[in-house]
């Protein structure tokens, strides 16, 4: 049977799709919508957040969420580009997976400097 490199982005897409399905709605409530409405002020202040983010377990969890979310979105946006009539798939793939790679590195750098 022919081996295909498709398994790699597909695995990242599926893993990212699962983790984002569970995490993103509530995370968006806590980081964005709640604070804009005056909620979660204690949790979102600098001392609490930097204390919370200094835990390695938390860093690993955030790394997993952000990186898998990025690769999930990159793969799905590649399909979206095709669905919206853009047929330059290799160029689209290079750009989107390239951005996901940059995002992955940026996440690692940011987490290591907290």
């Amino acid at each position, binding site marked *: 049977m022919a081996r295909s490199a498709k398994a790699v982005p597909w695995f990242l897409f*599926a893993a990212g*799709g*699962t983790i*984002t*399905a*569970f*995490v*993103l*709605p*509530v*995370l*968006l*409530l*806590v*980081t*964005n*919508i*709640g*604070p*804009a409405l005056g*909620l*979660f002020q*204690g*949790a*979102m202040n*600098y001392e*609490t*957040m*930097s204390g*919370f*983010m200094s835990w390695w377990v938390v860093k690993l969890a*955030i790394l997993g969420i*952000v990186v898998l*979310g*990025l690769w*999930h*979105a*990159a793969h*799905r*946006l590649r*399909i*979206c580009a095709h*669905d*919206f*009539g853009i047929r330059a798939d290799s160029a689209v793939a290079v750009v989107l997976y390239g951005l996901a790679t940059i*995002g992955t590195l*940026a*996440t690692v750098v*940011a*987490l290591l*400097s*907290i």
Partner: protein
Amino acid sequence: MSETTVRKPYKRQMSRTTWFMTHARFKSYMLHEVSSIFVALYMALLIAGLFALANGPDAWAGWLAFVKSVPVLILSLIAFGFFVIHTTSWFKAVPQAMRIQQGEHFVPGKLIIGGHYVALGAFSLFVLILAGVA
């Protein structure tokens, strides 16, 4: 035989850019596919937030002020809608992707989906309590 037949296959005319507007099923497919735009934007915002946290209290305050601004709030509310669409459509597809066999039978899809919603509820409640108590 010198006679040649010319194939004239029927090609249905379909727009490359608006094809999904022709059928309700295509529309709902595009709706959950487009959620990825908001996932990507939110991930970028979170990465910016991590850098702000690393750069100290002033940078963090700046990021938080940006997040609380009206345009970002409006985008966040739209994003929340798309995240819910992503979650429900993803859970709906799980029984097709993951068939669990138990003895002679497969675990019914409804049970698998239900389990996912229970886990989602428990996790969301846990995060909200954690954020509310902190």
